């Protein structure tokens, strides 16, 4: 099969509007790459550049050894699932799925066979003769998937395919997607603003902001060692606690509590990051603890999301995810900060330190 490679890809609509800047990426066969970022980060534009719906200002899109940058969308052998599903409203499900094969003049027998196969996998058999208007959101979504799968394309593109489903269905379809695409050999590029989708589906995640690639890596690595402050704040839910602190010597003061900096950090002003799920009730032998007054408890079922004001500086707040059955004092809650779970960022460059 063929890998997908983006070389130095840039898209500029005008001098000030540059949604994609100097992007370099490789997606190998069997890889599931997710582009994730807030709206306006350029992720959808990247997808359109790969698909050939927009032309890059600079750089190249390679599929295998082919430079497809100047080819029309239909000649790239790419299949795309649209956020709106883009089903043809006047065609039946069968015609929708077969459309791409018919336009490529496949023999009728082959078309029927492949439509049957895909419709079997996605459970569309009873719906084949219906029009899209007579389908539920989840069913439409499956038809859109079928239309992409049936083509056996060199690259799959998916543009926020779950965003129009309700929460319950989304979770179920997310699991289905993972299974369906586990059998696909072609590279997959998936766009979402939902970090759960990014974490659960991908073999590789690209975090984007302002048209720049912020970090590229395995979902676990991105969670564990975010490359900068933006990635730290964007990946992970509930959001990481990020607190800007100025140093005194080799320590920083967090309210009344002092926390030593790792060796080798030069920056004058640093950002301390710790995920709410990594803050815990202190145990014997914990080095760094803080305490403060709880002002908000959000019950999440298995956990309580607890917000507290750090003692000594009421402007500093921390959020911690504590087991719902744990006992603690609302007036004076003590929390431990395990050193291995603390992330340090340079306040000025926002890059990861240490």
């Amino acid at each position, binding site marked *: 099969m063929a890998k997908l490679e983006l070389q130095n890809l840039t898209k500029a609509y005008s001098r000030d509007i540059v949604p994609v800047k100097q992007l370099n990426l490789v997606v190998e066969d069997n890889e599931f790459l997710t582009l994730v970022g807030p709206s306006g980060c350029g992720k959808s534009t990247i997808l359109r550049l790969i698909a050939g719906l927009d032309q890059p200002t600079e750089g190249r899109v390679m599929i295998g050894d082919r430079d497809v940058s100047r080819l029309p969308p239909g*000649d790239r052998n790419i299949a795309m699932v649209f956020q709106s599903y883009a089903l043809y409203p*006047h065609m039946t499900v069968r015609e929708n799925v077969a459309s791409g094969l018919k336009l490529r003049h496949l023999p009728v027998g082959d078309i029927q066979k492949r439509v049957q196969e895909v419709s079997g996998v996605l459970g569309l058999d009873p719906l084949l003769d219906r029009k899209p208007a007579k389908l539920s959101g989840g069913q439409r979504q499956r038809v859109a998937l079928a239309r992409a799968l049936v083509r056996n394309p060199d690259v799959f593109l998916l543009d926020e395919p779950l965003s129009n489903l309700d929460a319950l269905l989304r979770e179920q379809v997310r699991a289905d997607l993972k299974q369906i695409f586990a059998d696909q050999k072609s590279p997959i590029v998936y766009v979402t603003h939902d970090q759960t989708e990014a974490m659960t589906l991908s073999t590789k995640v690209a975090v984007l902001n302002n048209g720049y690639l912020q970090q590229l890596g395995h979902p676990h690595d991105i969670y564990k060692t975010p490359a900068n402050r933006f990635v730290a704040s964007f990946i992970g839910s509930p959001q990481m606690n990020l607190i800007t602190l100025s140093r005194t010597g080799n320590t920083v003061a967090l309210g009344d509590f002092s926390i030593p900096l790792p060796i080798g950090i030069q920056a004058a002003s640093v950002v301390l990051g710790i995920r709410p799920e990594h803050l815990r009730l202190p145990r014997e032998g914990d080095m760094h603890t803080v305490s403060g007054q709880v002002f908000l408890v959000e019950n999440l079922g298995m956990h309580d999301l607890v917000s507290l004001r750090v003692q000594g500086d009421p402007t500093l707040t921390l959020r911690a995810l504590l087991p719902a059955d744990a006992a603690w004092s609302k007036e004076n809650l003590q929390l431990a900060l395990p050193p291995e779970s603390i992330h340090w960022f340079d306040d000025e460059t926002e890059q990861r330190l240490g």
Partner: protein
Amino acid sequence: MSKDYIRQREQRTGWLLMLPALLVLLLVYAFPILRAFWLSFFTENLSTNLEPVFSGLDNYELMVGDGRFWQSMRNTAVFTLFTLVFELGLGLIIALTLDQAFRGRGLARTIAILPWALPTALIALAWRWIFNTEFGVWNDMLMRLHLIGNPVNWLGEPFWAMVAVIAADVWKTTSFVAILLLAGLQSISQDLYEAHALDGASPWQSFRQITLPLIAPQIVIAMLFRFAQSFGIFDLIQVMTGGGPGGATETVSIYIYAAVMRYLDFGYGAALVTVTFLVLVAVVAVSWLYISRLRAKTE
């Protein structure tokens, strides 16, 4: 099962609210049509001193042998067919153009609707001047280009007179068709075209397989509107040619007008109205059936 009182009450209120409008409709539509139908069985003209005398199907028999009636029907059919074809074709091209993104599109859309917004009688007058033998700009242009040697009396030649009224109507009403079709085009999501392009379709294939089927309802509605209006065309032709030369552009409406207002043959005029009305209703009913089937197909 208990009765659905809320629904019942709403239905009653609904009828009550519609009643005034229904009465007005009956008065201004149903009554004149029925009155004309009734009158078509009477002879009422100068020979009866304008008194109605029952004559059964005499008027209809007369019509069958009336060459002028058949001529006017033929003229109406020709006028309707050609205006419809050209207005749809040109209207679609204009609509597709106005649907594209370009600088000044808003202005272009406004200008496009202008010909249709102007009063027909004024436009007819303008076109009469354009085709005027001695002073018309059309003859002037053709002579400057050396396409003709001497001025041509366009509105005086049976064939060219028909071409001229068709041209004037196309000029005036194409914009209406274009705006109607544009509304249809705008309801088609851009995603569909992009998905189709990724499926491997050429622009021409997308036009045939996406655009045309999805604006089919608008096309049928435009045809219906234009058919009804062209079939009853009166003002434009009355002002431009008065039905001439020698009845070459006389449509059914012009003939009815002449029968009633000039020859004061009210009975025969009523019979003409009845027949025209039935033809119109038949065509509209058939088209409506077709539209409902189209609707059922897309839903």
